[in-house]
């Protein structure tokens, strides 16, 4: 899976149920400042990441640095997926 596909899925997560109402957060916008990432949303995100990418995030991953934006969440998933033994996600866009 490519990084572009991961970020598309994360963008979709943050617009799910709100189609046509609010614009999706910018990729680098602070999700905590926007108030769109409370505990329930975070756990829902973990469930999605495990179901769709086969990656189980650790409680130590749940930092504001890792979860602060769509970009950083995508980077976290890519990092975890390229770790030895994890499902493969291409870290960079194809040339």
């Amino acid at each position, binding site marked *: 899976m490519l990084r572009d596909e991961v970020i598309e899925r994360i963008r979709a997560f943050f617009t799910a149920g709100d189609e046509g109402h609010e614009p999706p957060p910018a990729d680098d916008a602070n999700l905590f400042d926007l108030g769109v990432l409370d*505990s*329930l949303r975070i756990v829902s995100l*973990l469930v999605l990441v495990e179901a769709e990418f086969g990656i189980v995030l*650790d*409680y130590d991953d*749940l*930092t504001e640095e890792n979860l602060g934006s769509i970009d950083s969440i995508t980077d976290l998933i890519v990092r975890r997926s390229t770790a030895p033994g994890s499902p493969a996600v291409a870290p960079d866009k194809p040339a």
Partner: protein
Amino acid sequence: MKSRPFTDSDWPAFVAFAHQHFGQSHNTDRAFNEHWFRNRWHDGWAARVLEESDGSIAGVLMLVIVPVRFRNEPSTLAWISSGAVTDAARGRGAGAQLLLWAYQSYPMVAAASGNDFSAPLHDLLGVSAPGLWMRRFIVVHDSRAAELCRPGEGGVVANARVETAAVPGASARWISEIPDDYDALWDRASQSIPCTTDRNASYIAWRYRDAPYLDYRMVEVRAASELRGLAILRMQPTPAGEVCRIVDFVAEDRHAPDVWGAVLPLAAAGGALFTDFMVIGTRQDSALTAAGFREANSATGLNALPHLLSPVEHRAWTNTFHLGGRLLRDARSWLETDSVYFTKGDGDRDWPTTYDLRRLGRIA
């Protein structure tokens, strides 16, 4: 925010945090907390701290660790107990971080009576099965129990009195020590239960005999010399009289109806207005019914009897129940209402309230 283990050096800051964020739901008596959150089934405090960058406490989650039998193998289970985060930590994933730590760190995790915040998180992190929640069964011994109901709502209770009688061949008596042959009874009784607290003598001693500030009593039931059952209860004073709260019960399935039947006359003779038993799982349903219990719900009308009696409160409990943890990732494949057996005595559901502690002179 960074999560880390709770240590002794956190105690002073924790006391201040608990007074501000737990309120009356968690007392800060040190002996009480040591007993519950630093017991023999866990190395150190079974608690986690979320720390702000300045070192202040942003959140705390405390767990009660108990031994369990899971498919006849020993393991440990972490009951989610007290947890809170500061206002500043809300909306930053603090609750998720603490709960995820628990679910990822322990073989089994259980959560009962979730609130509006935590129940949806447990839905995602754990498993709940249809029909699997904490239910309450009641036998009314004395029509004065109706005085505990709201005005005008005690009619059903007043007319629900059940006459209890000794069970032929079974003798029940109050005891002060756990019987020497109790572990043999528990081994027999637990063989058929896929998932339950390991109620061996060591656990019973810790949970009931040695628990601070609650006066539990034990009843044994024997047939000839054979131990057939053990019930643990406390007599709770109310403005209308005492009531009998059975918080734990052990018997082989085949003997359970007679054991319940033998315990009830003792409770009635002791002056209890009613006896109740709260349980997660349906394994005892038929035995309870045979002994005269009825479930407290709107169909029977027995839900007019308040559950909260220290002091009497008609506020409803949430009776949700979730299981999770590393061992239970395939739980959906086996979790049925009769595959688990937990009682109100498990976890932190039967703790002294602030009202109790004042009555006992433990706090001003």
